């Protein structure tokens, strides 16, 4: 078990290193033009340019530059850990910018994830148990709706109905939980539901199909032959075995949303990480984009690690593989 975790951990570190390398090349080597030009202000003199190049370390060979980049990432720079440099536009710390936006995205993901995991799995189980009944058809109809509805449309509809017309929820914009917990929930509930809808639909279908497959297994018949209640047969024996692919998907989905909840963030004007990345890309403020990309990549790698470790707890056969 310890070896298994250690092996996974080493792989995670290798992946993160690769991500840093690729990010560096894509954002700092491939773009045309001298980055120093962006920092030096309008029509700089050659001396000013050389000064900026020296300050940015651009006069050093590429491997020294990359070494500094990676070194800063792991050990921190003058703005603290992780060192992500500063923005082209204002010279402010990328780290502080990202860290100020990150809670919005993380709260959005966390709330939506809880919603979609529980509702999706519950709908899937009910659908599988009541297969080919009206309940099943209604649930799968909901799933089809959730999967095929564009998030921006759903988000706007939510805002229109529940904020403008009914006034049940807060409108767009972000309220930090520290300043007003009720305001926070009131403003987050619609984005949570909107984002969760799509995923809940996927999870419901996946749970239903996995569970139906599992319920045909011989060990389910054994569980019934023992005289267990149908509830226990399905929730303990059936669901446990259907859980593995759902855990994988859950980990991946959460990680991908770190940089990928752009549409929901935009519709509800939450100004989270995805929104930050898109805006910075439009203004060519590449250090910010690179910072978000690396954060998202690290999130993916970490979630992978967590999923792999969870696997070993869910399925004992993995531990000996």
């Amino acid at each position, binding site marked *: 078990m310890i070896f298994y975790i250690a092996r996974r951990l080493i792989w995670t570190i290798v992946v993160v290193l690769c991500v840093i390398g690729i990010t560096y090349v894509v954002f700092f080597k491939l773009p045309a033009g001298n980055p120093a030009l962006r920092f030096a202000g309008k029509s700089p003199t050659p001396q000013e340019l050389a000064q900026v190049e020296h300050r940015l370390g651009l006069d050093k060979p590429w491997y020294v530059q990359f070494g500094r980049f990676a070194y800063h990432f792991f050990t921190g720079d003058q703005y603290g850990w992780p060192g992500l440099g500063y923005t082209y536009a204002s010279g402010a710390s990328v780290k502080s910018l990202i860290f100020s936006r990150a809670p919005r995205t993380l709260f959005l993901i966390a709330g939506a994830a809880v919603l979609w995991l529980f509702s999706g799995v519950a709908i899937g189980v009910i659908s599988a148990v009541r297969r080919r009944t009206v309940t099943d058809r209604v649930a799968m109809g909901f799933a089809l709706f959730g999967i095929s509805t564009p998030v921006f449309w759903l988000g706007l509809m939510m805002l229109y109905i529940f904020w403008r017309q009914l006034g049940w929820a807060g409108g767009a914009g972000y309220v930090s939980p520290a300043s007003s917990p009720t305001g926070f929930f009131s403003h987050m509930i619609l984005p949570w539901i909107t984002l969760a809808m799509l995923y809940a639909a996927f999870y419901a279908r996946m749970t239903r199909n996995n569970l139906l497959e599992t319920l045909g297994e011989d*060990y389910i*018949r*054994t*569980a*019934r032959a023992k*005289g267990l209640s*149908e509830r226990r047969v399905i929730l303990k024996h059936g669901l*446990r075995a259907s859980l593995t692919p759902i855990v994988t998907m859950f980990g991946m989905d959460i990680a991908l949303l770190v940089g990928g909840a752009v549409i929901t963030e935009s519709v509800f004007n939450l100004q989270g990480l995805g929104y930050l990345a898109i805006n910075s890309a439009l203004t060519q403020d590449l250090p910010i984009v690179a910072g978000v990309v690396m954060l998202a990549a690290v999130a993916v790698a970490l979630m992978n690690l967590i999923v792999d470790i969870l696997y070993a707890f869910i*399925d004992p056969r993995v531990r000996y593989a």
Partner: protein
Amino acid sequence: MSTGLPEPTRERDDRLLLDVRGLTVRFPTPDGVVQAVSDVSFQLRRGETLGVVGESGSGKSVSNLAIMGLLNRARTVISGEVEFKGRDLLTLSTDALRTVRGKEIAMVFQDPFACLHPMYRVGAQIAEAVTAHEDVPRERAWARAVELLDHVGIPNATSRARDYPHQFSGGMRQRAMIAMALVHNPDILICDEPTTALDVTVQAQILELIESVKREFDIGVILVTHDLGVVAETANSVMVMYAGRVMEYGPANGIFSRPQHPYAWGLLDSMPSVERRLDALVPIEGSPPSLLTPPSGCPFHPRCPYRFEPCATERPPLEAPNADAHLDACWLPWDKKVQLGLQRAKKVAA
């Protein structure tokens, strides 16, 4: 009418455990109704092993699943009576049936590789069978699981109970399944092809274990198999099934020494043994019929070398031809059967 079996007068026979009468199972499908089991009747007594033999799809497993209530009631039509301790299992509610299942009637299945949950410890799965019917603390249930694993011959049961199924060999898993079945000292143990998935040497051990369990707990065993050798070794009585129907039913020595039905002859002649060379094996021509559209009359008639005029149109009843014979469902007159049987015996001896 003599059955060749002890007469089942119910007042006297307190060893009678299970009385199945006219069990019929139908699966409605979009293509038609699958007539999986038709009019099957038999009895099981304490201390008796009933061997149920037949090819794949002969309805032997389905009849047992029906008795256990393990068929999906929404998608199955079951009729007949299954009397067990004065109750008709077919009319019990799902909840009432659950108190019988695993407690009074337990089942061991064919494939021990697929029948244990891969994600729970073997001991936990057996302990769960304990707590399913008995409100005992977890430690007591676990202790009972270890005790039973030890009883069925798992070495180091205390530590092996903490293993997962994939750490067990096939034979050990089947032992664990038997241990699970014995948790509540059931009256009936239904073994559905318990040795089919196992090595030959392990097969013998498992059969021996089932026999010793039967004697020790004085229970009735239904042994479903397509392996006549397995039946010959352990069964007291034998029921031969074909296309969902009983073809021949009687005491094991009668069936093996004086088989009466052409299908039983065919089965016995296609059974390899040490004495018989492989080229002396005679397969039954043709293949089993579709249960969507079973043949009219005797279901075996399209493959029967001795068929004659009534076979294709009228269904032969399951009766004993005379006082010395056991039950069969065949139109052949008794003297013809004796004659053919003698010819067969000579061929086997030669």
